[in-house]
C-alpha cells in the first residue's frame, strides 16, 4: 500500500470537533496559567479549528502545510515568550499538524486490523494515552527536581531567568555546597559505609536462612519464616521505637561493660538495625530462586566427595546467585533510603544522607537537597542499568534469550 495515499477521507465534522477539543485543552492550560481559563479555552478552540479548516481547504501537500503550521506557532510563541517560545511553538505546531492529518486522513487505522469497530479503535488509542498519563505522573516529580537543582537562588522556585533560559538563572552552587559542606560530606560517607556493610550482613544471614528453610526436615518452617519476614510487615515507626530501646541497652552494655568506643558501637547499632530490615528481602528472593534449584545436584556433589561447604560455594551459590544479588540490591536500597530507624537508633555521628535531607528540608528549605536527589537518582539509574546488563549477559551465557 502506498503510504502517502489516504486510506479514506475522514468526516470533516469529526476531524474539526476532535481538533477543537485538543485546542480547547491547550488553550485552557495556557489560559489558567495566565489568569483566565475560559478565555483561553475559547481562543484555543477558535484558533485550532480555524487553522484546521484553512489547512484542509488548501488541499495542498500534507508536508508543506505542516511546515507552515509549525512556522506559524513558532512565530506566535516567539512573540509572546522569546527564545524558549520557538522550541515550544515548534513542538506544538508539529503535534497539531501531525494530529490533524492523522485524523483527517484516517491514518490511525493503518497499523490496525481492518475489521476493528470504531469503538475498538478508540479504546486502542485511549489505552495508550492512559498508560502515558500514568507514566508521566510517576516520573514527573523526579524530573521537576532536576532543573530546580541548578537554581541560582536558594529557593525551590523556577525564577523568571530560569524560564527564559538565561545563564544567570542557573548555577552549580548547590552541587558545590554538597561537595564542600562538612555535614553533607559526613552523612554521604556514613551512608556509603553503613549501606554496604548492612547489605553484606543481610545477604549472608538471609541466604543462610533461606537455604535452611528450604530443607524439608526443618520444623515450624512457616512460623520461622513469618517471624523473619515481620520487619517488612510491621510499621517502620514501631520497629524503630522497639529498636531504639533494645539497641540502647545493647549499646550501653558494649560501651560500659566491654569498653568499646562510643562511635564504633554507634555504627554497629545502626548496621545491625538496617540488616534486620534488609534480611526479609534477601530471604524472599533467595527462597524464590531455590524453588528452581535441583537438590539432586548437591547429592551428586556429595557422592563425589565434596563437603557441604564446598558444595555450597561451588554448586549451589553460582546457581542461586541472581536471587542473592537482587535480594542484596533491595537490602542495599532499604538501608540507603532509610530515615526513620537511623534517626532513632543512630546518634549524630551516624547521620546518613536521608537523615540529613530530612532535617535539611524541615529546618532549611535549601536546594542542596535537590542537588543530592539528582545525584542519587543518577546513581540509582546507573545501578539498575548495570544490574540489568549483567542479567542479560548471564542469560545470554546460559543460552536463554533475554525476555
Amino acid at each position, binding site marked *: 500500500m502506498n503510504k502517502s495515499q489516504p486510506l479514506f477521507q475522514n468526516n470533516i465534522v469529526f476531524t474539526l470537533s476532535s481538533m477543537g477539543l485538543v485546542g480547547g485543552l491547550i488553550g485552557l492550560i495556557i489560559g489558567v496559567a495566565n489568569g483566565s481559563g475560559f478565555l483561553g479555552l475559547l481562543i484555543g478552540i477558535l484558533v485550532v479549528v480555524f487553522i484546521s479548516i484553512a489547512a484542509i481547504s488548501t488541499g495542498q501537500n500534507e508536508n508543506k502545510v505542516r511546515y507552515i503550521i509549525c512556522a506559524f506557532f513558532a512565530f506566535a510563541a516567539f512573540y509572546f515568550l522569546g527564545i524558549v517560545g520557538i522550541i515550544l511553538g515548534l513542538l506544538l505546531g508539529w503535534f497539531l499538524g501531525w494530529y490533524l492529518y492523522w485524523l483527517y486522513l484516517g491514518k490511525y487505522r493503518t497499523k490496525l486490523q481492518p475489521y476493528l469497530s470504531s469503538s475498538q479503535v478508540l479504546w486502542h488509542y485511549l489505552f495508550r494515552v492512559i498508560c502515558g498519563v500514568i507514566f508521566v505522573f510517576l516520573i514527573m516529580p523526579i524530573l521537576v527536581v532536576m532543573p530546580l537543582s541548578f537554581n541560582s537562588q536558594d529557593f*525551590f522556585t523556577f525564577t523568571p531567568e530560569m524560564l527564559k533560559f538565561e545563564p544567570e538563572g542557573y548555577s552549580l552552587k548547590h552541587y558545590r555546597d554538597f561537595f564542600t559542606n562538612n555535614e553533607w560530606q559526613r552523612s554521604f560517607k556514613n551512608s556509603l559505609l553503613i549501606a554496604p556493610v548492612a547489605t553484606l550482613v543481610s545477604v549472608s544471614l538471609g541466604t543462610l536462612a533461606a537455604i535452611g528453610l528450604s530443607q524439608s526436615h526443618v520444623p515450624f518452617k512457616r512460623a520461622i519464616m513469618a517471624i523473619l519476614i515481620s520487619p517488612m510487615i510491621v510499621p517502620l515507626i514501631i520497629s524503630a521505637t522497639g529498636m531504639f*530501646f533494645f539497641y540502647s541497652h545493647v549499646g550501653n552494655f558494649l560501651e560500659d561493660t566491654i569498653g568499646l568506643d562510643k562511635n564504633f558501637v554507634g555504627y554497629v547499632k545502626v548496621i545491625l538495625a538496617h540488616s534486620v530490615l534488609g534480611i526479609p528481602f534477601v530471604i524472599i528472593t533467595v527462597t524464590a530462586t531455590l524453588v528452581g534449584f535441583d537438590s539432586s545436584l548437591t547429592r551428586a556433589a556429595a557422592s563425589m566427595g565434596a563437603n557441604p561447604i564446598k558444595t555450597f560455594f561451588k554448586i549451589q551459590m553460582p546457581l542461586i546467585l541472581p536471587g542473592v544479588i537482587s535480594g542484596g540490591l533491595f537490602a542495599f536500597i532499604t538501608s540507603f533510603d532509610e530515615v526513620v530507624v537511623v534517626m532513632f537508633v543512630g546518634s549524630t555521628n551516624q547521620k546518613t544522607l536521608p537523615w540529613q535531607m530530612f532535617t*535539611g528540608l524541615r529546618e532549611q528549605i535549601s536546594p542542596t537537597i535537590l542537588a543530592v536527589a539528582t545525584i542519587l537518582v543518577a546513581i540509582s539509574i546507573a545501578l539498575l542499568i548495570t544490574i540489568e546488563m549483567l542479567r542479560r549477559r548471564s542469560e545470554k551465557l546460559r543460552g536463554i534469550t533475554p525476555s
Partner: protein
Amino acid sequence: MNFTKTILTTASAALISGVAFAGSHMSMEMTIVSWGGAYSKSQLKAYHEPYSAKTGVTILNDDSSSTAVAQLRAMNEANNITWDVVDVEAAPAMQLCDEGLAMEIDPDTMLAAAPDGTPASEDFGDMLVSECFIPQIVYSTTFGYRTDLVGDTPPTDVCAVFDTKTYPGKRSLFSVPINQMEWALLCDGVAKADIYEVLATEEGQNQALAKLDTIKDDVIWVSSGSDTPQLLADGEVIMGATYNGRLFSLIEEQKQPVAMIWDGQVMDLDGWIIPTGLSPERQARALDYIMFATDTQRLADQAKYISYGPARASSAPLVGKHAELGIDMAPHMPTAPENLSRAFLMNYDFWADYRDDLDAKFQAWLAK
C-alpha cells in the same frame, strides 16, 4: 578485599582512639543540638570554630532542636543520652527543667562574668527565666511582606494581616496558638497590656478564634521557620510570619523583594541547656563550652552572622557589622530601640499554664 580492609582499619582506628580518649578528664568530642540553617551557621562561626581551635575538640551538629523535648525524654528513658548541649527556646527549657531533664546552672560560678567584672547573673538580668536555661539570643516572630504585591501603601501595622480588603491575597501563619492568638486579640481592639488577661478567659479565647475566622480562608498554615521565606520567595503569599533572622537573610542576603513589619513583633529567648545524666567527662566538657560560648564577646560575635540580639547587656555595645555584607547590624536587632518600642513581650508563665489546653482548642478550630 580492599573494602574489607578499609572497614577493619576504620574499626580498629575507632577502637584505638576510644582507648586513647578515655585517659583525659574532659571528653574530646561533643554533640551540639541546634536549629539548622543560617542560625546553626552563625553558631558555627561565632562559637564552635573558635572553641575547636582553642581546645581541639570535635564538635558535631545535630539539627534536632524542634523535637528536643520528646527526644530528650526518650533518651533519658533509655539511659542513652547522645547530646551534650542543646539549644532550645525559653518555654521548652522551663519544661525540661521541671521534668529534671536539664541540669541546673549557677550563673555566677558556671558562666563568665562581663569584661568589667559584672557577674553573669546581673549581666543577663531578666533573661534568666529558668535555673537550667543559659540565654543566648533574643529573637522575634514577626511579619514580612512582598513589596511588589501589596499595592502603593505598604503595611506598617501588624493588623494589616487581618485586613484582607486593603491587602487581598494569601498570608502565612504558624499553625500553633502561640503568637497567632495574641495578634488576633491585639487587632480586635484589646490593649497590649490586657491581652493575657483576656486570653485566660473562655470568651477571650473565642474572641481570638473568631477574629482568626475572618481570615481563615486566606491563610496558609505553616509549621517551620523555613516555610514562610519559601512562600514569600515564590510569591505564594503576600505576607507571612516567621523569625526575624530568616526575614533578614531573605531580604539582605537573598535580595528578595520583601520588607519587614516590626510592629507587633513577639520577642522570645533562645539559649542552651545541658541534659542531665551525662558522664562526668562529658558534663565537664559541656560546662567548659558553655562558659566560653556565652561570654560577652562570643554573644556579640554571633550578631555578625544573623540578626538576633545578644542576651547579655554587656554584648549590645559590641555588636558591629555583618561579616560578609558589611551592613550595620544594630538596627536589624529585635532589641534595637525603635523596633523594641513596638514589640510585644510574650508571657512565658501564661503559656506554661495554658499551652496544652489552647493547643487542643486551636487544633480543633483549625480542623473545622
